């Protein structure tokens, strides 16, 4: 097994070099729009720079911010490649013509469910949403770690739950769409056709029902943060009891000083998950270098960088080694997350959430 992996790695590197060689003269820089946590961005750009000699800069923005920034800079894009963050944002971006198609020679290695059939984006990691709770605070409040979405509505948790703002954060948007999916399933169970339309997309009624849930949850929310993973640290500090974040972000915190303080649980009725996407920015300033990055980021070697900085998302490349700390997706109940429908509704939901829920005072 290992020699094959090494061989594949070697081949992909030599292929890269072949592709890269004529490019060096033209493009010596690359600007990456990076959505995962900052230290992973640092590690990735440094590794890419070491491998190709291309001077690689990045800006870390949460996925909603990235989308907004790409939209604002549409006439004159400042980024060439966008790496990381839930795929719904990439679907929304493709819809608006902000990213362009690219058929990477390395994409074949990635399972089909983790990439766009139209080649607008490809998945670079996978992760599931969970509840990241502070054990001590929960104990003081006298409640158990939540195991369902409704547990978060407990009156004891008033002001003790945090999530990010769906307008800025892909994590929070994933949480929102998870509820949409659960509500659509419930409506569908009552009467066929009320939960999903003929395209298989959740109906407006399901979306309204999700807004009702978040309006209730709003009473328990301390603060909507800008960045998706930030609530986890609030939980670690003991400022809140439960953070709605990706489980790998909770594991990362446990690895970085919060061992024994934080615990991860999953909602039994089903949780959402993300495919971390990657795409070439349309009309970006460094198209060649961007493609090199794209090819490289799909390799097993590039996908093994995450665990070195405690970013424990699962790799999409089956050849990449999986850290034993990463969550096993087969052991938890995942909702049937429709990324396309989520991507198409993303902008409208973010704005509605901002106006109806985030800005509203709590009762």
């Amino acid at each position, binding site marked *: 097994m290992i020699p094959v992996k090494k061989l594949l790695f070697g081949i992909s590197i030599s292929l890269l070099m072949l592709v890269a060689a004529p490019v060096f003269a033209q493009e010596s820089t690359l600007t990456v729009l990076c959505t995962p946590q900052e230290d992973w961005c640092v590690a990735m750009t440094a590794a890419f720079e070491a491998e190709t000699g291309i001077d690689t800069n990045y800006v870390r923005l949460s996925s909603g911010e990235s989308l907004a920034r790409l939209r604002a800079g549409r006439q004159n894009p400042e980024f060439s490649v966008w790496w990381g963050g839930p795929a719904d944002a990439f679907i929304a971006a493709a819809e608006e013509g902000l990213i362009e198609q690219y058929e990477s020679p390395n994409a074949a290695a990635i399972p089909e469910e983790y990439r766009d059939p139209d080649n607008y984006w490809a998945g670079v990691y996978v992760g599931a949403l969970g509840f990241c709770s502070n054990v001590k605070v929960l104990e003081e409040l006298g409640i158990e770690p939540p195991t369902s979405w409704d547990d978060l509505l407990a009156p004891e948790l008033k002001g003790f739950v945090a999530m990010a703002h769906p307008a800025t954060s892909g994590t929070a948007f994933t949480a929102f769409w998870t509820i949409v999916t659960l509500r659509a399933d419930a409506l569908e169970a009552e009467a066929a056709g009320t939960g999903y339309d003929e395209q298989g997309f959740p109906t407006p009624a399901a979306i309204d029902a999700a807004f009702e849930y978040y309006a209730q949850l709003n009473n328990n929310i301390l603060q909507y943060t800008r960045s998706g993973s930030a609530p986890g640290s609030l939980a670690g500090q*003991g400022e809140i009891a439960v953070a709605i974040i990706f489980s790998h972000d909770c594991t990362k915190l446990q690895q970085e000083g919060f061992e024994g303080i934080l615990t991860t649980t999953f909602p039994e009725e089903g949780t959402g998950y993300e495919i971390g996407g990657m795409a070439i920015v349309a009309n970006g300033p460094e198209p060649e270098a961007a493609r090199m990055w794209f090819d490289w980021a799909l390799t097993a070697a590039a996908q093994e960088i995450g665990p070195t900085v405690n970013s424990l998302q699962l790799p999409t490349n089956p050849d990449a080694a999986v850290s034993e700390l990463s969550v096993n997706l087969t052991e938890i109940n995942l909702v049937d997350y429709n990324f396309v429908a989520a991507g198409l509704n993303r902008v409208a939901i973010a704005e509605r959430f901002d106006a109806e829920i985030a800005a509203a005072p709590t009762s």
Partner: protein
Amino acid sequence: MITVRNSGQRYAAKYLNALLKDPLLSIAIIVSVMFVLITIVLPLVAMVGESVSESGRPLFQQYLSSPVYQTIIANTLVLGVLVGMVGTVIGFLFAFVQVKLNVPFKRAIHIIALVPVISPPFAVATAAIVLFGRNGTITRGILGVRYDIYGLDGLVLVMTLSFFTIAYLNLRGMMEALDPALDEAATNLGANKWRIFRTVTLPMLLPGLASSFLLLFVEAIADLGNPLVMGGNYEVLAARIYVTIIGLYETTGAAVLSVILLVPSLTVFLIQRYWINRISVVSVTGKPSGTPQSIDHPLVKWTLYGAVLLICGLIVLIYGTIIHGAFVQVPGVRWDWTFANFDFVINGIGSQAMRDTTTLSALATPIAGLLGMIIAYLVVRKEFWGRNALDFGTMLGIAVPGTIIGIGYILVFNTPIGIGDLTLIPKLTGGQGIFGGALAIVLVFVIRSVPAALRTGSAALSQIDPSIEEASISLGADNARTFRRITLPLIRPAFLAGLIYAFARSMTTISAIVFLTTPQTKIMTAQILNEVENGRYGNAFAYCVILIAIVMAAIGVLYFVVGAQTGAERRLEGGR
């Protein structure tokens, strides 16, 4: 200062004549006016224009009639009023103890009171969360209560501690300028100390108190960093503008909200500028005769002193937490000693930001200092049309909240400006902007610092008899030479103060800059925000410690280069 009112015609002739005779003077005027027009007025006009555009106008009605936004506007104003009041009271307390009480450790207290000026944003808020948060070391650990610091009370606490220095310096300068002869006269007429305080001191200080209140009000409603970190669900306009632009990139919506925020800011600025100055009864002509009488009543004395010591203790505790927190694993949770935070910041994400921020601040500092002195010279000494407008326009750089400046820059400078094919101003903002967007950042640093340099400069100039400069001109020197050889050396302390302020302000500003950072140009405060938001307090504290160290080192260098004459030292440390 001599002001001669001329009739229109004679004035125009004299004006033209003077300009022709001294081209350098006209160049100085034109450059200053152009600078203010392009870097301050233009972005503001563009922003107001955007807000009343076709798509903006309906938003006004939508926002102003929505109960949610009414609450946000009310929140903003309540916060401003509370911070203004509490900050003024604390500033007054510190000034009173310095000027009127004969107590030990006054110098130490003075230095402690100055610390917040050079501290980066978020530092105080983050330390306050570690100390007084729901799981705070003091609230939870010692007192055993789960205090909810997020929201109005926490914001008032951290903003007061961050901004009260402004009130303190303002009031202290004023109290020292009060002529003790008035107190003596009142004593001779039989008044006791309390009566003197009530009927003599307080009325004389009223303009100072009012202007401190107003300055703090403007700072508080413009502040972005603290509401982002500990606002909880207490929403204020500045944070809302931030989410509108960063999260939704709704420039029109942000412009509309900015104009709503601009109304109270500018109103207060105008009140401060035209009304307070008119009612001011303190005369600054000549030195006060004799030394101020001190208050000896032990109860009064020790109560006030105790209160000041308590606040000093709080400041020391907070900055101690910042420094200590920079060296521990997870401040507030795991107090294990580590250098990992510094390693992360210095060898990881922070090195470029440190280099960029320091370089750009160092570039902006002399520009802001010199420009401030030149504008002060022009405004105080020269007669020309638009003199008041120049002063007013320059002051707008600080009167307008930073978020609004940032959005104005995005609106104006995101595309090249020109006539036909001729580019007059290239694209300044964003990664493709000139110098990777660095020029826009330097400009913002400059316009945020020039007002302070202008104020100290014109205050210093109006204390200096113009006859000295006239003598120089009579002896054949032109205006430029006179400014360089006579005026600038005379106002060196003000120049130095302007430079120090400019550097400290540039290094610590966030609200305008957060919209302007680019992949090529990283700014420390924006990175600190990132670390704070992600809860990596140790890294954030390490950043803050490094930032404070850079500012202190720069102050040392400035003293050395510009030369701390005895006068300069006295003035600065006297806080005037």
